[in-house]
């Protein structure tokens, strides 16, 4: 009797162990473009079925961004590259605040676009990458009414973490986000330092909140 229970327990433990070892391996096996397609389709479906997001409810949009998008983004790297050389001198608190404020700025910027999602689908464009590439570009088009919208991503391989890839740059209609913000941030950092940049971002976010 005891032996039977023990055997079942053993089988159960073995099963759990197997699941634990296999699951991350499966996740890593997902190709970057497959992941982007799954992720963007998932986000689009969420928006289509959520009346609050379509009416522009910012807290709902931030919740969606935090739950679906942010786990797949190396936002620290994005912020660091946008801030440039000044990032290295920043204290951990300054780094945290920069990321927070930058995220709010971006979410607000894209909230309007998300509110307009209706019947769009994401189409992957052909990808040039070899299996050993640690950084890849995934190119997509969002097709709906009107001209297709070019949306490209740069991803880095993160073996065993999340889906195995993290986004660290985004290209909307031919314009890379990090590069564009680098020249927005540089004059602020040069003139007023990291704290000056944080203050500017806080002020901008406050002004944007008032507008809308």
């Amino acid at each position, binding site marked *: 009797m005891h032996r039977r229970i023990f055997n079942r327990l053993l089988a159960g433990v073995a099963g759990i162990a197997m699941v634990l070892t296999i699951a991350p391996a499966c996740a890593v096996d997902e190709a970057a473009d497959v992941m982007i397609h799954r992720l963007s389709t998932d986000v689009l479906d969420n928006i289509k079925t959520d009346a609050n997001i379509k009416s522009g409810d910012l807290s709902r949009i931030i919740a969606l961004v935090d739950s679906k998008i942010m786990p797949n983004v*190396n936002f620290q790297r994005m912020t660091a590259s946008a801030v440039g050389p000044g990032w290295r001198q920043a204290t951990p608190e300054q780094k945290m605040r920069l990321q927070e404020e930058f995220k709010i700025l971006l979410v607000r910027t894209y909230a*309007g676009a998300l509110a307009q999602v209706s019947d769009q689908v994401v189409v992957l464009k052909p990808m040039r990458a070899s299996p050993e590439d640690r950084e890849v570009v995934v190119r997509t088009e969002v097709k709906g009414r009107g001209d297709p919208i070019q949306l490209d991503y740069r991803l880095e391989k993160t073996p065993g973490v999340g889906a195995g890839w993290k986004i660290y740059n985004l290209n909307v209609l031919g314009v890379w986000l990090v590069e564009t913000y680098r020249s927005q941030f540089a004059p602020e950092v040069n003139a007023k330092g990291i704290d000056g940049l944080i203050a500017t971002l806080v002020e901008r976010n406050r002004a944007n909140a008032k507008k809308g």
Partner: protein
Amino acid sequence: MTLLWRPYRAFAGVRTRSQRLLVIFLGLILAGCATGPNANPVDPLEPFNRSVYRFNDAVDQAVFKPVATTYRDVTPSLVQRGVSNFFNNLEDAWSVVNNALQLKGEAAGDSFFRFGVNTFMGLGGILDVATEMRIERHNEDFGQTLGYWGVGPGPYIVLPILGPSSLRDTAALPADIRGDAVTHIEDVTTRNTLWALRATDDRADLLKAEAVLDQAALDKYSFIRDAYLQRRRNAVYDGDPPEEEPVEDAEPPNSLPK
């Protein structure tokens, strides 16, 4: 032959005037040329450009934006779509030539069929039947053609009224104006009406983008400049530009698991 020749001649008068303007304008640019310690390599004319930008912005706020806003509010969206389609169709005709000049046979063919289908089946271009038929649009202007053949963008230039451009795209402008069917309309009233309508329609399309820009940019001038230069480079390479030399990251990748 005469049919083709006569509107061309009507345009010849404008050409000399525009050439004179161009000379004056280039003189102004050189006068505004300043290379300070903070000069951006892509924007050596920044002080001059910024003043033209301010001028454009003032004109925009006073005239173009109010007109475009009213147009957007009072015109049924179906009509607005028809107007955009009509001008896109004229662009497609010019894209046939530029795709051919870039030896892009399939794209030239697509543009040709789009123009044919939309002109004859889409009421002169008001309906975009070609897109319904899944014929892809390959928009190419002469600036892109020059870029395709290796001409770099050169310094960024903000043109009065016309806005962001580069030395290359400014040099391509006379060709683009000639390749524009509206230029060749002989009736002055019709021609000017179409120009005004297109300007209004283009500006109305930008109203939403402008609202985003107001929120996203810390410095609108440099944001527009960087977006323009990147978008043009992207367009020259048909959406797939080669990597530029990587900019050194402040933080190595994967430095912190999140």
